[in-house]
């Protein structure tokens, strides 16, 4: 092909389709609807063995002995491993504190802790062999709450702690403590005309992603291992796995396999090390797939919390001060507890202007199930309590709850309790206005004109328990604030490799990152960013693996911001390189090569005036441009350990909800009939996915409001309901319509002005539902989830 770009060839370039701001469809959509998408539990390898994990049947005990001989003698069994079989001195792992044993040694600290792993030729053989392992336990008293954790005779969950928090915690059974003191809350309280206080309880929620923990480890000829696994952060896994195996990181090659949801529950390791150990021991590929029962033990949960709050306000509705104490139960191992404490404390005042605060948040070590990351991460628990307080204050002042919130709503420039100024739009009052302005759904929708009630629309639904006699309606509001990205001085970065080349006469771009696509749609957005920056239609997303630099975690609403930012950065660098090549090759054909601002669009090099200078095909010919770049957001600092002051967060995101519920007061059953939401997303890169994320997050908040809770026996610390039969999740019958209003107020510090989306809708959804139930029933309701007995007084 000849050289284009000579003046005679100039024509109007076609705009590239599928860039940012458009609702392009998921690149993995077709595979997912045809059943071809390979999730981690679908991995298969010739000659593959199945792994199974034996877990403790008790929450706190010394292990006297473990006898594996009978299990090992079972036909079809290839290996049975315990703590003694670990190949190196590194026997623990952990996200921040390495306190979690790969396999229990000496002690078990929570119900369901892994004690041994088995590999066999059939999953049932592995299960039956595991059942033959004999363990002698000597039971210890269980630590289950603050009193038993920090009381005078409390046993230590971890003896000989030497992590970096031990110096500033008041008791070794406290993982981390963060106070925040600003102004003088006691002085300010004197100005208050009304003061309200409350004690709130937040239950233990499970991420309940549908795709079970699973993966396949394949031993390699070089003594290393290839691991295909569903995770949220490949490089964080790698950093924890390699030392336990005694392998250098480049001998543990990790590839992301299909992830069936995550919501924080895949931040910690589950089966990764176990599968690798079994594969290396047997020399055969080993697959582990948790069943649902195991899954409840195999990942950390959302911290249950006890919260005490005091707020004051003047007659005209201005908040005077806030005091709070938040006690999070971290369970047996630290996981993300320190960071959850940082979030819970720094966001404990909510999206309100309060100058005088006295805050303390702690996380406990107990023998309850370990808790860590889950969507909303510490901010969810606080939001539940401070929003209940707002309603109490409004009621006491005889004000409209929305108006009261609007009077106190923070805005751009407001200082948070940490002293950090919010330096991007904070449309808190506007979000509340939007949800309030929506028309309410018609009353008694279940009673179609003159006919009998459609029981499906009533509390109790299909079970046909009522015909609507005792049904009352209530409306409630809530709003929340969530930080975006990793905070407190964490060196948060992401890496992307972008390649452009000509394939079959077409310019094609490839994006290679280690970002975990867990369903959120990051892969869709990466393709959109590259189309926008490089003007090509064809974008291939390379599988995520550890052959490219870290992308950080798919959590904290950070991936579009961070890896999206890295992809944008790398694409821009590729564009510069391509233009450089173009100038060198074709620069003499048109003066605009030297003088104009040049873009790539529709597979061509164009001037900002739309004049086409060249075809990318002719610029690149058989050359490929391939660049890998890292990207960081602006730095943050750690909160001061005594005062909590410091610019600890990168960005904030805001959402507001209005819930409309109907409650059958005789049966204690609740039906949420509408859950309207308004959220500021900065810039909607993909409006369809944005709405999907907001609706999904909203329904997880509904779940914790009315049904979801892992119930731990307070006497034995054993989990009572580790199944989908007993841990209730919202079904399509339990969920209402979720109308969404999206604001796009750009954050000038973020790529394209975007704001992290995924978590904020989970915050305010729960308190809005609670507020609506209180409004319907007149009950106080200080715990979540609300159960029938709380509504009927039984």
């Amino acid at each position: 092909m000849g050289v284009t770009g000579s003046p005679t060839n100039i024509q109007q370039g076609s705009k590239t389709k599928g860039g940012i701001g458009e609702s392009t469809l998921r690149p993995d959509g077709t595979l997912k609807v045809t059943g071809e998408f390979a999730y981690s539990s679908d991995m298969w390898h010739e000659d593959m063995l199945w792994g199974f994990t034996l877990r403790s049947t008790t929450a706190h005990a010394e292990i006297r002995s473990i006898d594996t001989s009978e299990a090992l003698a079972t036909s079809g069994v290839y290996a049975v491993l315990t703590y003694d079989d670990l190949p190196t001195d590194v026997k623990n792992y952990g996200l921040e504190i390495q306190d979690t044993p790969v396999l229990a040694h000496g002690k078990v600290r929570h119900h369901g802790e892994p004690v041994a792993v088995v590999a066999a030729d059939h999953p049932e053989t592995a299960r039956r062999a595991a059942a033959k392992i004999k363990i002698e336990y000597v039971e210890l008293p269980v630590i289950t709450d603050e009193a038993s954790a920090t009381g005078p005779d409390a046993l230590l969950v971890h003896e000989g702690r030497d992590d970096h928090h031990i110096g500033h915690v008041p008791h070794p059974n406290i993982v981390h403590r963060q106070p925040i003191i600003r102004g003088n809350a006691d002085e300010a309280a004197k100005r208050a005309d009304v003061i309200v206080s409350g004690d709130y309880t937040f239950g233990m929620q499970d991420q309940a992603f549908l795709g079970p923990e699973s993966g396949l480890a394949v031993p390699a000829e070089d003594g290393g291992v290839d691991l295909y696994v569903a995770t949220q952060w490949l490089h964080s896994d790698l950093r924890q796995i390699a030392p336990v195996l005694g392998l250098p990181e480049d001998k543990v090659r990790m590839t992301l396999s299909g992830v069936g949801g995550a919501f924080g529950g895949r931040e910690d390791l589950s089966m990764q090390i176990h599968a690798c150990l079994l594969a290396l021991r047997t020399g055969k590929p080993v697959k582990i797939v948790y069943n649902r029962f195991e899954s409840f033990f195999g990942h950390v949960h959302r911290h249950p919390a006890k919260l005490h709050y005091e707020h004051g306000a003047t007659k005209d509705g201005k908040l005077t001060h806030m005091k709070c104490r938040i006690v999070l139960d971290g369970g047996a191992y630290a996981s993300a507890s320190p960071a959850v404490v940082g979030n819970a404390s720094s966001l404990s005042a909510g999206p309100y202007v309060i100058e005088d605060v006295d805050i303390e948040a702690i996380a406990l070590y107990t023998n309850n199930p370990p808790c860590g990351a889950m969507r909303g991460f510490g901010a969810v628990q606080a939001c539940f309590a401070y929003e209940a307080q707002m309603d109490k204050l409004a009621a006491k002042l005889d004000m409209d709850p929305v108006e009261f919130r609007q009077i106190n709503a923070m805005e751009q420039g407001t200082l948070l309790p940490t002293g950090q100024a919010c330096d991007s739009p904070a449309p808190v009052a506007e979000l509340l206005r939007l949800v309030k302005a929506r028309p309410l759904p018609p009353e008694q929708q279940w009673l179609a004109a003159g006919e009998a009630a459609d029981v499906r629309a009533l509390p109790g639904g299909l079970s046909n328990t009522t015909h609507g006699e005792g049904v009352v309606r209530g409306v409630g509001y809530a709003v929340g604030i969530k930080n975006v990205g990793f905070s407190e001085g964490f060196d948060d970065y992401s890496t992307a490799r972008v390649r452009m080349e000509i394939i079959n006469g077409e310019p094609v771009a490839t994006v290679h990152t280690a970002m975990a696509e867990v369903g959120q749609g990051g892969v869709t957005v990466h393709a959109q960013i590259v189309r926008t920056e490089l003007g090509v239609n064809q974008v291939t997303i390379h599988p995520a693996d550890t052959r490219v630099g870290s992308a950080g975690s798919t959590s904290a609403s950070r991936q579009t911001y961070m890896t999206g930012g890295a992809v944008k950065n790398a694409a821009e660098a590729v564009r510069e390189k391509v233009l450089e090549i173009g100038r060198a090759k074709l620069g003499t054909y048109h003066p605009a090569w030297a003088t104009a601002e040049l873009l790539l669009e529709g597979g061509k090099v164009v001037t900002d005036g739309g004049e086409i200078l060249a075809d990318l095909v002719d610029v690149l010919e058989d050359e490929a441009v391939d660049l890998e770049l890292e990207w960081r957001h602006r730095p943050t600092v750690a909160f001061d350990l005594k005062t909590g002051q410091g610019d600890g967060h990168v960005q904030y995101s805001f959402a507001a909800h209005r819930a409309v519920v109907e409650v059958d007061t005789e049966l204690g059953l609740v039906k949420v009939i509408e859950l309207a939401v308004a959220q500021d997303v900065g810039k909607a890169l993909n409006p369809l996915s944005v709405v999907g994320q907001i609706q999904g997050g909203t329904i997880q908040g509904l779940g914790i409001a009315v049904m979801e809770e892992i119930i731990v026996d307070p006497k034995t610390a054993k989990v009572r309901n580790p199944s989908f039969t007993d841990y209730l999740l919202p079904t399509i019958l339990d969920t209402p319509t979720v109308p969404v209003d999206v604001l796009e107020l750009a954050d000038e510090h973020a790529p394209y002005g975007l704001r992290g989306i995924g978590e904020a809708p989970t915050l305010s959804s729960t308190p809005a539902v609670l507020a609506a139930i209180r409004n319907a029933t007149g009950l106080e309701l200080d715990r979540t989830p609300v159960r029938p007995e709380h509504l009927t007084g039984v």
Partner: protein
Amino acid sequence: MRVNFTVNGRPQEADDVWEGESLLYVLRERMGLPGSKNACEQGECGSCTVRLDGVPVCACLVAAGQAEGREVVTVEGLADYAKHRDDAHPGTGCAAGSCGTGLDAAKRWQSKPTDGRTGEADELSPIQQAFIDAGAVQCGFCTPGLLVAADELLEQNSSPSDADIREALSGNLCRCTGYEKILDAVRLAAARQEETV
């Protein structure tokens, strides 16, 4: 034991099946058809929904032996099933043997990385296309089961009300989407069906 049954229009046989193995296990691990998902294996989530002689069932609750001599349609066969819906024996639309996954192919099946492109070449059933278009797929783990259940709903009721859709899909959990877009997808597929009639 040996189990003989028809999967997506193809006669299949599975050997050395343990008494306790579920239909789901046999489909996923022996037939190489992992499209039906294993989210709870206790009949609570619907991710494993397949049609057994036309009736949607949780494959995790069906003992493999119970499928003997019967016809199973999984998400992998959904597009083809929809195409041949009006045949005398839906589910045997591939009697000619031109579609479905053969046992050899099934045994050779390996998970493959996605290349990030849509498989435009595949012909999808209306409900599959609607799920993509409506944004009803996020992680997608619930999707195969929902598709099989929704397809059956539309077969029975070509213009379901929202309450009908909610009732029909109440046995299928989705943790990601909040269900609104799943409703949209079913409405969209119903509307498109109406247009073509």
